[in-house]
């Protein structure tokens, strides 16, 4: 009797398990911060970055889908330049934007400035948008990432892209501003060399994928040129030895900012770049 009932129960359990294997096996990865080499970034790359953010990290397509599946207007299917002009002229518009770029940016950070009829939060008579502000958690897009999305939304219908490409200085500002988001928060420690390089905006001035000089020399083959100790010294005290033909532009305060772990991760990573 026990064997029969146990066998029945186990068989039923296995049937349920089998059903899960008949379905698509999809993993929900945590969002990956796109690695952008600002030195070689073109507008096409920037638009492509915007499209990527629109579909992935920005999670825009969760709601902005074609009817009947969408829970928000189908942005991909509408010309955002023409749509923005109409909405700016609408008396229900409560924002301060003057053009399409401003309107889209405002919609990203404060979506309730204009709520498209029938898409408002239930019970608010279309005065409150259900859309989260994308610069806040859980989405947390940076200013540069929002610019990229605006560029994509302008470019996808052949309209002129009015946002400018991010400059290294702007990227540095973004990086500097990021910890201020949570004033009381502890700084985020980089877990990988790539994260550390991004955190300290090394790639704003140094290319990691070529030997070409940007503001500073390209680092594709830095491991062949310098020893680990020399690389460490170049980071801690960049003005001790300056490569010929380059200005003394590298910040001298990395020793104070980086943790020992982060510094060693970057040094080891660069020391292995010998191509």
């Amino acid at each position, binding site marked *: 009797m026990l064997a029969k009932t146990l066998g029945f129960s186990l068989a039923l359990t296995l049937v*349920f*398990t089998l059903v899960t294997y008949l379905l698509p096996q999809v993993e929900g990865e945590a969002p990956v911060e796109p690695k952008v080499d600002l030195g070689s970034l073109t507008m096409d790359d920037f638009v492509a970055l915007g499209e990527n953010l629109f579909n992935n990290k920005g999670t825009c397509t969760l709601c902005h889908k074609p009817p009947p599946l969408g829970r928000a207007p189908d942005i991909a299917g509408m010309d955002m330049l023409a749509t923005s002009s109409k909405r700016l002229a609408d008396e229900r518009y409560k924002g301060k934007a003057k053009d399409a770029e401003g309107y889209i940016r405002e919609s990203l950070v404060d979506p309730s400035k204009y709520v498209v009829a*029938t898409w408002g939060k239930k019970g608010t008579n279309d005065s409150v948008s259900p859309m989260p502000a994308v610069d806040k958690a859980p989405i947390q897009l940076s200013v540069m990432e929002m610019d990229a999305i605006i560029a994509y939304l302008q470019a996808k219908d052949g309209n002129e892209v009015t946002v400018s490409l991010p400059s290294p200085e702007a990227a540095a500002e973004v990086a500097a501003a990021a910890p201020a988001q949570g004033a009381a928060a502890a700084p985020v420690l980089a877990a990988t060399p790539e994260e550390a390089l991004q955190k300290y905006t090394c790639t704003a001035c140094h290319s990691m994928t070529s030997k070409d000089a940007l503001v500073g020399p390209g680092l594709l083959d830095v491991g062949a040129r310098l020893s680990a100790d020399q690389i460490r010294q170049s980071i801690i005290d960049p003005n001790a030895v300056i490569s010929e033909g380059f200005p003394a532009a590298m910040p001298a305060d990395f020793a104070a900012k980086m943790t020992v772990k982060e510094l060693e991760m970057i040094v080891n990573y660069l020391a292995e770049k010998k191509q």
Partner: protein
Amino acid sequence: MNNDTVQITGRNQLLLRIFLVAVFLFGLVGSNLSYAADVGVSSSSVAARIAPVGRVQIEGQEPIPENVASKSESEVPELIAAPRPSRGDYPDIGVSSRAVVWILAQMHLFFGALVLAVPLFVLVIELMGFKTGDERYDDMAHEFMKISLTGFSITAIFGGSLALALFVLYPDLMGYMMRVFGAQWLVYAGLFFLESFFLYTYYYGWKAMRYGNLKWVHLTLGLLLNASGMTIMVLSNSWATFMMAPSGVNEVGAVVGNIWEIMKGPLWNPINLHRFIANIAFGGAVVGAYAAFKFLSTSDPEKRAHYDWMGYTSNFIAILAFLPLPFAGYWLMAEIYAYSQQMGITAMGGILAWLFIVQAVLIGTILLAGNFYLWSGMSRTEGSVRYQPLIKYIAFVLVICFLTWVTPHTLILSASEIAELGGSHHHILGPLGIMPAKNIAVNLMLVVTFLSFQLYRRSDKVATVPWAKAGNALLVAIYVVAMVNIIFLGVYYGYFTNTVYKVGSSVAQVGSTLVVIIAGIVIDSLMFKNAKTLPSHWGKIPDRSQYALFALPIAFTWLMGLMGYVRSSVKTHWHVYTVMKDNSPDNFIPTIGYAGNMITIVTVLFLLFVLFMFWVANLSATKQPKPVAALEGGEA
């Protein structure tokens, strides 16, 4: 008389001692309070210098007033943001930390659900027995308690192991949770003393407090056992709902509210209700399996009758609690959407959407098994022949609805298959894949399941009221109108208007289903008052019907595991949604196949532990016969 006097004197002495101890304790507290009130010190220079250190007051002088400015500064709570652990901050023990916590948490929840639910319906059954005077209810209630008693220890063992695993594997998260919930953890721990006290006095006092006024004392103990258990549940629910939808903290996770504001997040009450109802359904299903096993293990007609009745009662509890569960689920999902549309879509329309196909299979299994058991149970009564022709139609509706429910929306196809199909959606079956079709299906399944239940309940009765025909006609009309309404609302608002109306119409569909259930109960209770009763034979039920009672707990257990996976996964890569990121190596949503493996592991583990629990329960009733050799003088 003398003895009485002595006893009274003894009681008085005891009271006096308690009083003196209370006065002493009160005195201690009072003296501390008066000290606390007197700590302000004078403004003289010496006193002012020493006051901040020890609040010392110079004898004979006025107390120093406290420096108001420094006090208010020191009293401003420091806002500490949620930690931001990096990958290296998570201990690596060589196996997936998430898998370890997953198994322990799920086992703790399974047994927790069981031991919270069983005393709840045991109390109701005991009360029924007391009110009706039928001692069979009392015996059955006692037996239910007996078989679940070991479950309390197992719950505690898994709970303790889970807490230790969390502290070892997720120290930053647990540090943060400790900081946020503070002393609430100690209240939670303290409640276990209360629950244990009521549990043991309730169970072991069963026979000592069986009749008269003592029975009321016993019932009160049962009530207090349930009250402490429910409080434990809602406190621990607040941790889970805080992680899903934090409240009482600012946007970086620093505590800015009091403990009540932290606990009472937007999802707390929906989860409380959902778990409360689901626990009853789950508990009923598990004890039903016990009854089925005992039924199949014996050929004694008396015992078979007893366990048949016990199995029927368990199934009744499980299905009755299960019927309103989807509505509690609706409320929970509506609150999730209201809190964060993004979170709602992640669950229902994003990566986790496929999981609802598995959910459909599980709920379909539960409903089919529940219905099959009711149909089989009709063989107990001779009057059931009147209703048996209807069973095939109910079965037909159930199967069609089940198939609709499991129809996927998007198919995973190769390029050639897409070309052949003309797209990723089938032109006829595609529309069956979206929510409106599934809402129609699930509501119709609930309506016809209630019909099965109603027919079963009627099968041993003949109405004697003069308005029986009119009552039946009214009931049929209510069924027809409700079913047409459910289909119309689903089709019209689901396919011909936008999504907002689609969601709104599902509430009206649920309303139709509830109208059928409530009207059915009211009309039948009036119509069959003083009805003629036909003979009913407990124990006269085919053996195969008992397998439905095994299918129910297996499907319920699996379903709980699956819903746990989705509840936790909607947080995506956050430990505490929007305020504390998960940077562990497991910060992704695993595939449905991986989740299926994990759920199967915990279901099988649960099955084994439940068998152990049943075995221990029966062990207490087993008595080893004295060896014959001993009887003969100990010579072997």
